[in-house]
């Protein structure tokens, strides 16, 4: 089938074809088989979908519309603020769980539990202000928690932002069967202002001298509290 160049009447050149050229098939041609039917349908469906998507998500092709959902629905379409209990859980696991454990049970004799602790959910003389103060400046010396005495030191966490402290407290007050109301960032800011620039950790004796205070009910300005936690099984 293959011709050598010497037999080829069109050849006036001395270049000899090499082996790969000699074994080549003739130049390719095309058949005209019809389009597969399913591909026509697929193309039609895709074009329909593409036009539909483009019409619905282009903000009227205006150059200043970057997010049609925001443009159409205004503030209502914005994602709500993150659930403080979800943020709080992450911050708790990062910062607090080393001592208090992810179970909130602490370590017997060393780190006090948070589950059903009067310091967390409120007790005879312990109020919300005491809880926030401990988180801001830390605590040290002997403390009674659920009838047991702990003698250890907790570092201050004033470097966290008000919202972060509020999220952590909201989380520990609603997890593991605890059911105290959430703490707002505004309340943390107020307690932070009241405490001035106190740096040294609190002792139980000092805290007992401060009258207990309960966070004022969430006012109109406060962000909506998350839905109350479903009755969690006892930890």
């Amino acid at each position, binding site marked *: 089938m293959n011709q050598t160049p010497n037999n080829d009447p069109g050849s006036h*050149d001395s270049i000899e074809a090499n082996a790969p050229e*000699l*074994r080549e098939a003739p130049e390719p041609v095309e*058949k005209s088989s*019809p389009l597969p039917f399913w591909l026509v349908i697929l193309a039609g469906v895709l074009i329909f979908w593409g036009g539909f998507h483009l019409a619905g998500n282009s903000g009227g092709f205006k150059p200043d519309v*970057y997010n049609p959902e925001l443009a159409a629905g205004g503030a209502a379409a914005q994602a709500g603020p993150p659930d403080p209990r979800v943020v709080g859980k*992450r911050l708790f696991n990062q910062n607090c769980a080393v001592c208090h454990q992810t179970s909130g049970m602490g370590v017997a004799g060393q780190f006090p539990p948070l589950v059903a602790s009067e310091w967390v959910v409120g007790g005879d003389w312990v109020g919300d202000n005491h809880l926030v103060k401990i988180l801001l400046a830390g605590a040290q010396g002997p403390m009674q928690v659920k009838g047991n005495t702990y003698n250890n030191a907790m570092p201050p966490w004033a470097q966290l932002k008000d919202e972060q402290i509020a999220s952590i407290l909201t989380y520990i007050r609603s997890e593991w069967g605890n059911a105290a109301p959430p703490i707002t960032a505004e309340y943390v800011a107020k307690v932070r202002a009241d405490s001035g620039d106190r740096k040294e950790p609190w002792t139980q004796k000092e805290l007992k001298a401060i009258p207990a205070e309960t966070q004022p009910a969430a006012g109109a300005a406060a962000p909506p509290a998350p839905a109350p936690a479903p009755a969690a099984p006892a930890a």
Partner: protein
Amino acid sequence: MSAFPSISANTLSTADRARIDASTRGPVLLFFGSALFWLVFGLALETLASVQLILPWFLEGISFLTYGRITQAATTIFAYGFATPAAIGAGIWLASRLCRVELDHHKLLVSAGIVWNLGLLIGASGILSGDSTSLPLLCLPGYSTPILLLSYLLVAIWALLTFFRRGDSPLFVAEWFLFAGLLAFPWLFAAANTLLVWNPVNAPAQPAIAYWFAGGFVNLWLAPMGAAAAFYIIPKASGQPVASHHLDLLGFWTLMLFGSWTAGASLIGGPVPAWIQSAGVAASVMMLVPAFAIGVNLHLTLSGHYATVGWSPALRFLATGIGCLFAYWVLNAINSLPAVNAVTHFSDIGRALTVLAFYGFFAMAASGAIYYIVPRLTGHEWPCHGGVAWHYWLAAVGVGLIVIDLLTGGLIQAYALTNPIVEFRSALDFIWPFRFMSAVGFILLFLSAANFALLFAGILLDTRKNAAPAYLAVREADSTEPVAV
């Protein structure tokens, strides 16, 4: 469905082929040789970068080998050192064969090859010494790109001259893709460099242009050049006609229509007008049409003759490359859906898709073209079939490892990043083992490229004096299929 040859080719005589091949020898071998040198060098840098991603202290303190510089240098060297010269080299040979004219202006193209490599050398050194821009695929410093454009101008002049000197035969499908690619590249490269590097436009418009270029580089430059090689070499080597002229038309025009619009999908949630994002999503999904049209067309062409893919290196590499291109377009369409993209956007999945397009599709397709073309230019056979098999399997396993690991790891990372309970640090810990496996994949890719470069040197120097073609698998003595190498 039987043979209805709609376009009858003016058959080239063997002597005509021999004259055309001999006339293209110098420039094509120059472009291929430099492409393979840069491929090995770029993959060495890519391997170092992938090791730094898992061991951050590796090569710490050497400024020109820091992660930011070598990862940009590696991408740039792949795109402009390997991919573009390999595409030009294959394009020169394909254009001469398809237009049925011998190559003249030999010196024009040899100069273009030398100037191109000089420009890239300056540009790559500029990147490693800290002059890079921050734009993906446009990292070359502004003082080196004019040299590359000048070199391409010489190629473009030659391409136009060849196009107008062709015979009066109707254009074959491979020619459509070939000349579309050759025309699209300077348009993309000059426009993007003008608007972003030499005379930057306002900042808010920059990401849209940068991603337009990155999408066009794959869809309007690499994809048409790979398709041109596939649509000539696959029917040629398998001896089968291209299955359907109508599928050619559908695949070509939908690729040209949607190819440059896909980039908006990379900007979902970014600071660009919503219609650009939505047009990108729609175009990325509609790229399924050319993906199926081109993929099905080549599959029907080879259908029933896949035995040739078993033994022919050119067909094996080209078929794998086209398969990867199909997979890339399908995965890219899925990844651009807003619901999916909201999760996957900042994960390693984007990187997996880039590797699939660059090393899975283009490096494979270009290797297939080189395996087919070079023996015709040198008159020698590939020195050893074992080496070819090693090249294929190292490259295939390497790309497979990288893409599969980064896709799975990227999914885990994406879910970790979008879950507020999980710390950022943990998301990085989850992806670590997958990045480790992708570094192994890059080592395999590097070995495959080094192996290929040695084979290329072997065929140029004719080290083995091999008389028989290099088969990847045993060809049965009674096979009726063509020799196909």
